[in-house]
Every structure is written in structure tokens, then in C-alpha cells.
């Protein structure tokens, strides 16, 4: 693996499978009374969050702590673009503190790439602007494999605001690497110009795509998009691109419904769908910890054999 995880494109097929397999092994820990491994004892992981994201930050924090790393939460909200302390100064501060890995969430696309120029530790992209969120894609792939037993040849529909979605970008890249077939479904205003170069299909018609989908991943519609003229009204969006019980019935029998959270119940996903047996939303959260453990563990050079011994 590379020293950093900035994009899902950084992962070869072998890398990605190694992360998923490692995560699977680490997931077994969660069933034990003592959930902690000594693997990263003495290593420091910094959670550098320029945007609020309690769930992602907590997930990384739990992952690092289960590997016995020292965790520093560095909340820098509002101090970047607003010309407080610069990203570079923050990087130099973390460098001086001896961070072995920096998990960064930032509102600007590419901020983790910039950070990687300025520090020696590993940088993990925990979501950058409208660019990527590679650990989300890894946990999504992990969840699909867990539920459906395979990734190769799976038909995955990713539905909603693709234009502004870092989850969609990372999922398209990773799922392509892993042999799944992705179809993006959105109103044309929420697909980027240039999407034709992505390794996936594109459709404007959710009802046409659902009957042949093994996985439907619903993306969150951000509140500011609702007022940004991308579609006429929230109700119209919901009618055309929301997943309700009627639409869910058109899915093949074993198909699953995913959502990266947080959900807008009643907008992109109906409550009865979110809470149905097809829904993997709670599993995704649990799997997030295992996958992030695997990523930190592999980036910081842990040995799988050592872990097995330590766990034994």
C-alpha cells in the first residue's frame, strides 16, 4: 500500500482486498469481551477535523483506540478558509507533535493532498470537500461483501447528488477496482460534466435501474442543494429519486439498501425503507470501525501475524 490513503484510486485490487480481509479479521475482535489489540501502542493518530462529523471522527477514534494508539482529536473547524491558522501551520504543529498518522476531514477538495506534502506521517482522507471519502467506500464494499458474499459482478446503483458527493466518487473508483458494476442515478443537474469518463454507467431513471440492482446506495441530499436550483422542489426530487416502499418492492429479492448517513428520512429515503431488513445502515456504522482499524493498521506498517498472536 501507499504511505497515504488520499483517494480510492490509490488502492490496487490487491490492496483493497487486503484491507477488506484484514478488516474481517479485526471485526472478530468486536465480539470479544476485551476489544483491544496492542498493535499500535506508542503510535500517535491525530484526528484533524475541519468540518463537524461526529460519526466519522468517532469511528476513527474507536478504531485507533482498539489498536492501542494514542489519539489526539484536533478540531480545527472554521480556521482554514477563514484565514485563521493556515492548513500548513496546522500541519507543522502536528508534525512537531510527532503524529504517525493524520486522519483529515476538510471542506476543500484536495486538502489531504496538500497536507501530505508537509508532514512525514501517513495521511488518511476522511472526506475532502466534494472529492473523495475512501474509507467510506471501503466500509461500503465490506458491507456488500458481508451481506451478498461477493463483489465481482454485483450491480450497484448509487442514487442522488453525485455532483457534490465524495462518497459517490470513492465508491465508483473502488467498486470498479473490485469488479462490481456501478450505475449512477440522478437528475442531470446533479451529475458532474465529465462523468462520462468515469468507469460506470449513468441513468436519469431510477425505476428503470432498480429491478436489476443488487445494491441501492442512497446519497444524502444536502439542505443547501434543495435551495440551489438543482431541482424544482424537495417534493419533486423525492417523487423522482427517493426510495420508498413501493420502489423498494421492485428490487430483486436479496437486494440491499445502503446509505452513508446521516439520512434525510422522507426525502431520499422513506422511514420504512431505512428501517427494513434490506437496510444495512447500522451494519455500515459497525463495519466502519473494522475497516478503519484495518487501514490504520496497514498504513502504519502493522504485521497481520503479530496481531493474530497478540489476539490469541
Amino acid at each position, binding site marked *: 500500500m501507499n504511505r497515504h490513503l488520499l483517494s480510492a484510486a490509490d488502492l490496487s485490487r490487491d490492496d483493497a482486498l487486503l484491507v477488506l480481509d484484514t478488516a474481517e479479521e479485526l471485526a472478530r475482535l468486536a465480539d470479544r469481551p476485551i476489544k483491544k489489540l496492542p498493535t499500535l501502542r506508542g503510535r500517535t493518530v491525530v484526528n484533524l477535523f475541519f468540518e463537524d462529523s461526529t460519526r466519522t471522527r468517532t469511528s476513527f477514534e474507536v478504531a485507533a483506540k482498539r489498536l492501542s494508539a494514542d489519539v489526539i482529536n484536533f478540531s480545527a473547524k472554521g480556521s482554514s478558509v477563514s484565514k485563521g491558522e493556515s492548513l500548513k501551520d496546522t500541519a507543522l504543529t502536528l508534525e512537531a507533535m510527532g503524529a504517525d498518522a493524520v486522519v483529515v476531514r476538510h471542506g*476543500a477538495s484536495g486538502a489531504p493532498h*496538500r497536507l501530505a506534502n508537509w508532514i512525514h506521517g501517513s495521511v488518511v482522507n476522511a472526506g*475532502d470537500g466534494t472529492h473523495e471519502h475512501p474509507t467510506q467506500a471501503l466500509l461500503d464494499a465490506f458491507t456488500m461483501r458481508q451481506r451478498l458474499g461477493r463483489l465481482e459482478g454485483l450491480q450497484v446503483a448509487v442514487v442522488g447528488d453525485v455532483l457534490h458527493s465524495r462518497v459517490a*466518487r470513492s465508491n465508483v473508483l473502488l467498486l470498479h477496482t473490485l469488479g462490481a458494476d456501478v450505475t449512477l442515478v440522478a437528475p442531470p443537474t446533479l451529475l*458532474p*460534466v465529465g462523468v462520462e469518463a468515469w468507469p460506470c454507467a449513468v441513468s436519469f431513471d431510477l425505476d428503470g435501474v432498480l429491478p436489476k440492482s443488487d445494491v441501492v446506495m442512497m446519497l444524502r441530499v444536502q439542505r443547501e442543494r434543495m435551495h440551489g436550483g438543482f431541482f424544482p422542489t424537495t417534493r419533486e426530487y423525492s417523487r423522482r429519486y427517493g426510495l420508498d416502499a413501493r420502489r423498494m418492492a421492485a428490487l430483486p429479492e436479496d437486494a440491499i439498501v445502503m446509505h452513508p448517513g446521516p439520512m434525510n428520512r422522507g426525502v431520499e429515503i422513506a422511514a420504512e425503507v431505512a428501517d427494513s431488513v434490506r437496510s444495512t445502515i447500522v451494519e455500515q456504522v459497525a463495519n466502519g470501525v473494522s475497516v478503519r482499524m484495518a487501514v490504520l493498521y496497514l498504513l502504519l506498517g502493522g504485521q497481520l501475524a503479530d496481531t493474530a498472536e497478540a489476539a490469541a
Partner: protein
Amino acid sequence: MSNKWILRGVRPLGGEATTLYVDNGVLVDEDPVGAQEFDAHGLIALPGLVDLHTHLREPGREDAETVETGTLAAALGGFTAVHAMANTEPVADVAGVVEQVWRLGQDAGHCDVHPVGAVTVGLKGEQLAELGAMAESAARVRVFSDDGKCVHDAMLMRRALEYLRAFDGVIAQHAQDPRLTDGAQMNEGIESARLGLAGWPAVAEEAIIARDCLLAAHVGGRVHFCHVSTAGSVELVRWAKSKGWNVTAEVTPHHLFLTDEVVASYDPVFKVNPPLRTAEDVAALRAGLADGTIDAVATDHAPHPLEDKETEWAAAAFGMTGLETALSVVAAAMVETGLLDWAGVADRMSIRPAQIGRLGSQGQLLTPGAPANLVLVDADSTWLVEPAHSASRSRNTPFAGRTLPARIVATFLRGRATVLDGKPA
């Protein structure tokens, strides 16, 4: 230092080797008494370069550039005249500010500084600035621009084009529809989709160019388009010229050389307005410059202090330095590719920009009687672009670390050497 020169072995416009004589600020046809000899064997002589688009940042942002440092960089790049853009602090929208910039240029003495006047008060796009007062000032302003901002109100643009007819002024339009580029970060296309950066569509430039060609034709005004960057813009300018309308255009060296693929590094040294475009756009710009559709190369030299570039992409300032690398980049993009010869370079980098700016004493062919504004170029040698060695106060060159062809050996401003042996004279 002597203002009398004998330049032996020099090749005007890349032609046959000859000797040029300089006396009292002009080219003469015989050996002036007491002249200094300069061995120019193998060097190409071009009329001193004229930049239609330079940001000297003074007054207001002297941390980025001053008239002194910017014009020294210009001389080192072979320029004998630059047009200083109006987006200073305060804005160059009254006679007092343009006269100040003009005088700072005179005092620095490295090259002529022709201030550009703002079209509208404070660049706000609401009310015409006192264009006539700036035209009649000591700075004799003929080029007016809200550069950095587009004059997007169609009625205001119409009035400005009409009004300037009284004193043969030109509007240098920064063609960018503001609504289509709200928050835009890079060219909209395959790369912006992949990088998750807000797209800047070609149509945002082309729609304004199309509109302003029609407006200029309707009122008989003169419009010049700053830094055209798309294949569609070239087509529109070609079409307007075929109609006989009074339309001119410039292209920057960086748009002739770099594509949006370099943005993948997220290094804001590549962040510029208008954004770097695709390889197809670069090819169309080169073809347009070669066939004369695009009249001029202009640098859009836009210095920024390090802290405005050492940031995440979205927070960084737009702009690149360009005065010291312009001729070399044009040599690489146009001469080495066979698209332009050196006479063509002289036309696009000196003669035509001087005509657009109505600069009588610049952009003249190197014949006896012409003002001795010239640059000597060693076309056969290459050099490494090292930002730390730049005379500009800023370091934001996108060509750092590249080896480029064509080295400036000497620059003469009205017979006085401003640069000798590639160094300030």
C-alpha cells in the same frame, strides 16, 4: 552608461546577420562616434516586447509586487512596455491613480509603464469611471479594463464601448459570466469531475465574447478580449474578424502550454483565472495565434505572496507570474513547433500589442529612425526556471523546475540597456 551601441552579428527577426547602430535613442544607419561594441553574433533581435496585461500590484499590494520589481522582471523578460492593470488598492479608476502608477514607472526606468484605467468605479460594474479624465491625464490611458471582473452588465458594456470612441480607447474585457462561474475553481470537464472541484465552463467565457463582439459591431466600438482560453473563444473571434468588426484578442503563455491535468496535484501554483483548459483548447489557441486570429500574447503576470498560494486549493489566490518566462514559453509552444517564426513572435508580442494599446513609440520594426526599443535573444540556449532567482517579488511561477528554450541576453529601452548579459544593466 553609453547610449550609443554597435550590435554586431545580430539577426533582426531571426533573419540574416547584420549590424545595428544605436544613437540617441534611435536606430541609425551608420557607426555613431564613440559607440560601445556589443558582440551579438548568433543573437536574434526583436522589437522590445509589449505586454498588454501585467499586474504590478502597486499601489496597495506591495507585498506581492511593486512597480520597481515588476518592471525589472519585465525588462529581464525582454519587455520595453507593460500595461499595468487597474485592480490595485485603490483601484486605478481616477486620473490621480493612473498618473501615480505612470510616474512610478518613469522613476523605475526599467520599461515604460502604461496604466490601464478601470471601466467602472471601484471595478464594481455599476457606474462608468471617469474614462475621459484618465485618457487626458499625463498617463494618456487608452486601454480600459475591469480585469479580474467582467463588465457583465450588457447596457454598461454598450455605453463604455460607445463612449470610448471619442478618444480611440479600447475595452479589454475579462470575459467571465459571473453566474456561470459562482465558486468555480477549475475548467469544467473530465478533470474537475474527478477532482471534485467546482467547474468553470468554457461557455462562461464564450457567451460574453459572443455578446461583446455583437455589441462592438452595433456601436462601432473597439473591444479586446483578455486571456482567451477556449477553442470556442478562438472560433468566435475568428468569426467576428471575418465580419470586419473591431475585435482583438490576447492569449497568455500558460494557456498556450499547460492543461488542466496539472491540477491533479492540487498545487495552487496552477490556479489561475481563466483556468487552464484541455489539450484541445491549447491546440486551438496555438492555431489561432499562428493564423493571427489571436493578435497578441499577454502575460497576465499576477504575482501573489507565498501565503496566498501555500494553502488548500479553494482558499488560494488566482494567478501566475509570467514576465520572465513569456518569451521562452512562446518559443517552446510556437517556434519549436514550427507554428510561428521569429518575425511572427515579434508581431504577436510587440507590434500588434503596441497597436492595440496605441503606443506610438513601441512595437516598431528595427529600421533606421525607429526608437531603439529592442531585445536580444539567444534562441539556441536553454535555462532552468528557478523561482528564487526571479526579479519579481513573488514566486508563483507554474514553470518552476522546467528547462525552457530561448534566453534573454539584453534589452534596450530607447537605446539605454536595461538588461545586459541576462542581468539588470
